[in-house]
């Protein structure tokens, strides 16, 4: 069942592709704003520079949490691409995310502290939708195995249109795009400085940046699952979804956490109930 080759491919290639995606993102964002924008390789320069810098920390435990975040995010992604169990992947993702939060908490700094609380709120906002998505995929394909879902002939997106939209909604939170970049953002400074990453600097910040690349690729893989029945459509859809996220990012202002949590929960309830119920009735799940 487990396909280790794909897992290793992910570990090796994801940072390259993820970095490029981040670079393209910045370029497109710049163009949307009428700017020239940085080189597509800029994210690599940034991370390269961060590793050249000095490590300045409030206390050493921060580095430990950053490393844990890095390792468990890789673990999550590798498990996903190696055809693991989708629910286990979701739980591993949570574990990774919690390490980032703990890293922010450990610094005992007001800005990263508020960032950590907001990050937790964001996790609380997207978690139900992600679990519902995983379950929806199970109902559609009768398997929790990522490999089975990815290679199924069932057009999942047609069975789960509501869940797909709901997932796109929370994807904005996961990718830290406006309007939901409330705990930290990729853009210029915000009201809580840099939120969770405020107290990280140099190599540990670089590590977090690479972790984001891994995460992006993992999430795009998740989007692909909806289109697993046709790889070509799948890849095109993933690209369109990412472009859409960039568009949303550039046309929205940051919202308060209240709205982020309420709206994503509302959407999760509506699409979750309606879509899953419809699916159960279609599949004759209800006697």
């Amino acid at each position: 069942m487990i396909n280790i080759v794909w897992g290793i491919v992910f570990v090796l290639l994801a940072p390259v592709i993820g970095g490029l995606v981040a670079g393209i993102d910045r370029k497109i964002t710049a163009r949307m704003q009428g700017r020239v924008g940085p080189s597509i390789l800029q994210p690599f320069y940034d991370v390269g520079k961060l590793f050249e810098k000095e490590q300045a920390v409030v206390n050493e435990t921060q580095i430990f949490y950053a490393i844990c975040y890095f390792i468990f995010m890789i673990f999550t992604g590798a498990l996903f691409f190696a055809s693991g169990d989708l629910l286990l992947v979701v739980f591993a993702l949570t574990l990774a995310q919690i390490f980032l939060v703990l890293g922010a908490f450990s610094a005992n700094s007001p800005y990263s502290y508020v960032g950590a609380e907001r990050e937790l709120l964001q996790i609380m906002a997207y978690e139900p939708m992600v679990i519902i998505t995983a379950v929806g995929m199970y109902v559609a394909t009768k398997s929790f195995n990522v490999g089975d879902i990815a290679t199924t002939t069932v057009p999942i997106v047609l069975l789960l249109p509501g869940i797909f939209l709901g997932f796109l909604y929370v994807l904005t939170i996961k990718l830290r795009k406006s309007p939901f970049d409330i705990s930290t953002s990729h853009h210029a400074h915000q009201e809580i400085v840099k939120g969770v990453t405020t107290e990280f600097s140099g190599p540990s910040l670089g590590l977090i940046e690479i972790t984001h690349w891994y995460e992006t690729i993992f999430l795009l893989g998740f989007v692909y699952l909806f289109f697993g029945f046709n790889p070509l459509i799948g890849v095109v859809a993933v690209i369109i979804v990412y472009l859409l996220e960039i568009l949303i990012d550039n046309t929205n202002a940051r919202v308060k956490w209240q709205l982020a949590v309420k709206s994503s929960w509302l959407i999760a309830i509506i699409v979750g109930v309606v879509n899953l119920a419809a699916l159960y009735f279609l599949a004759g799940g209800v006697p």
Partner: protein
Amino acid sequence: MTYLAKSPWIIHYDASSCNGCDIEILACLTPMYDVERFGIINTGNPKHADIFVVTGSVNEQNREVILNIYNQMPDPKVAVAVGICATSGGVFRECYNVAGGIDKLIPVDVYVMGCAARPESIIDGIVTALGILEKKRSEGASAPVVTDHHMNKEHHKHAEGGVQ
């Protein structure tokens, strides 16, 4: 050539400027000048920054802050004084509360002239700073923790609190 020069992240601090220079710095971020094409990002966080961009002059209220931000930046780092005020105190030089330019407190690497400094010259100043940044890195020099000898005792205690 290392990555340092390709990705200078700045922190901008408005000491006691008249806001003229600050507007010009922000102008650098607009599509017109678009400093992001050089990889420059305004981070607003000393711990992420490589270049300390200061506008305005030193006074009693902000000397503590300037020191704190500078000391919190990880090495290698450079300081850029933007505008005449930051360079020497400018028109405010004679004020009762103004101590003078930023170099009264911290080692300044680049001075950008003008009142207000033009975006072109600000960008030029930062690009000049990149060379210095690169030199500092290759020398492996680490900036000393800067303290303020003009401060009274009470201030002094806090300022050093910036670095453990």
